[in-house]
């Protein structure tokens, strides 16, 4: 038989990758379509999402109407932190936020259906839905980020762009890992979703704050264990050329990917732990 050319082989590899991704694409496309189909409901969701973002921003703005600097940052610089955190979180919420419906599956016994399909269960859960309404909040984050960048006198050089990309990408991954982490714990907590809310939504709140205002225990919890400072504050101070606080020096902004790795490590660990508990493995 004639040997296949390299191009043919690449095409075959591409085709098989596309094939393997097809089921996930089909489900996501269906979910997205069905969400947009209910026009008024969707519009309402978008508006709600937008307003929530605005109110959170208003909190910071009110504080700054009383003082000129918080945690060593001016208002425009805080906007940079807030924008990075909110944008990264909203995008993660868009793709991973629905993992918090796991308790519903567990109570109804419908998680079993996932076991009967030849796909990894976490992947099925993640691709089972998409929250398009978060786009509005992401918009708030992006706008805040833009304004913050424009008004803080940041130099537009490759270094800044690298840091932005690194920060946003790592922030997205870190928050996504948090959602997985929370879902894994739901196998044990069931009705205790408020406990995971504490580090998921508390984490989001923490990420929008300048870590310089935190006490030492808080720096341990939200600086390192749930690495929220790495999602926005540290990249921001690195971009702005500010010194970081005690225990969180500015150069850590370049280590944002490490935070994402840690978040996913813990998340996957808790997920496997939770699945095994569900299946009754290990006693």
């Amino acid at each position: 038989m004639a040997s296949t050319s390299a191009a043919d082989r690449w095409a075959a590899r591409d085709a098989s990758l596309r094939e393997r991704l097809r089921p996930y694409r089909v489900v996501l496309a269906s979910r997205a379509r069905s969400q947009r189909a209910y026009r008024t409901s969707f519009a309402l969701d978008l508006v709600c999402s937008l307003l929530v973002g605005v109110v959170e921003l208003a909190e910071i703005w009110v504080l700054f109407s009383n003082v000129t600097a918080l945690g060593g940052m001016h208002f425009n610089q805080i906007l940079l932190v807030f924008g990075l955190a909110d944008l990264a979180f909203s995008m993660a919420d868009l793709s991973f936020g629905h993992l918090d419906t796991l308790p519903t599956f567990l109570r109804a016994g419908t998680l079993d259906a996932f076991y009967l399909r030849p796909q990894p269960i976490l992947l099925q859960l993640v691709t089972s839905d998409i929250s398009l309404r978060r786009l509005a909040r992401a918009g708030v984050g992006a706008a805040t980020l833009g304004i913050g960048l424009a008004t803080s006198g940041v130099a537009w050089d490759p270094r800044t762009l690298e840091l932005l990309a690194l920060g946003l990408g790592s922030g997205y991954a870190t928050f996504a890992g948090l959602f997985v982490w929370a879902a894994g714990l739901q196998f044990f907590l069931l009705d205790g979703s408020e406990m995971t809310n504490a580090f998921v939504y508390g984490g989001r709140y923490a990420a929008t704050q300048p870590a310089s205002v935190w006490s030492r225990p808080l720096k341990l919890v939200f600086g390192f264990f749930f690495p929220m400072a790495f999602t926005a504050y540290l990249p921001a101070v690195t971009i702005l050329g500010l010194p970081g606080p005690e225990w969180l020096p500015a150069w850590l902004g370049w280590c944002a990917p490490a935070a994402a790795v840690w978040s996913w490590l813990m998340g996957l660990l808790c997920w496997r732990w939770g699945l095994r508990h569900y299946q009754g493995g290990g006693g």
Partner: protein
Amino acid sequence: MTGTIIEADGLTREFRIRDAKRKRLLTAVDQLTVRIEPGEAVGYIGANGAGKSTTIKMLTGILVPTAGSVLTCGLRPVPDRRRLARRVGVVFGQRSQLWWDLPVRESFRILAAIHALTSTEERDRTAELVEQLELGGFLSTPVRQLSLGQRMRAEVAAALLHSPELVILDEPTIGLDVLSKQRLREFLVGERRRHGTTLLLTTHDMGDVERLCDRILVIDHGRLAYDGDLPGLSRTADAERVLVVDLAEPMPDLTGVGGARHLSSEAGGLRQRLAFDAEQTTAARVLAAVSDKAEVLDLTVEEPDIEDVVRRIYAASR
């Protein structure tokens, strides 16, 4: 085709329950040992809570056994879950596996993509299933708007889309009307004939068992109480069917008519309950014998219920 479809050896599953104050150990499945060969149609019956669902969960890799081992289609269910999922189709009567707010057709498209069927395979198989199960009328309807009968047919089609070697159905006819039950049973019989699919069916309905299964497993309190064919089961259980007749005029007790045993009379003899051995005679013959003696206005046939059969089996096995 592989070798033995299901190979269970001393399969056991225990649960720890917190019962008021103490902690109890519940043995849901106790030392189950059974072999099912390709092409068989096996009925798996037992009372509620007897361990049927737990067994199925262990066969498909949802639960880890506490002791013993099981091989499904030659694979270990928990470590090889995903490979196994390509060769097994499962229908849960009370839990849907379809996508709730999407049209039925979409569910099939998604499943075809999940099982990596080629477009030809998808097209041909979907057409075959749509025709056989008469799904054409509601392919565009969202699953949540379907009646129970329609949904069950769609679920069965979904489970069979990837032409699995083994089909497991957990209470598929529960809540269905007589016509739907019949259609579903006919389809399953036909599917086995066409593709040689192995069938494992858990049910409470003796009608399902009679019309679909060559072999019966009875499970009681986690233990296998009977493994054999249907005539053997009736023989072991001494189970009787009951013909209930509503007569035009009150009659004295119809004892010994058509070989049936008189159970009771109501309304002074207007309604009478007659029990007969399904091995010896049929409802039709008993009815004919009764009609010779009196005018029958209406009738019902009661099947021996599973609990009754199981209880007798259990008593007989002691």
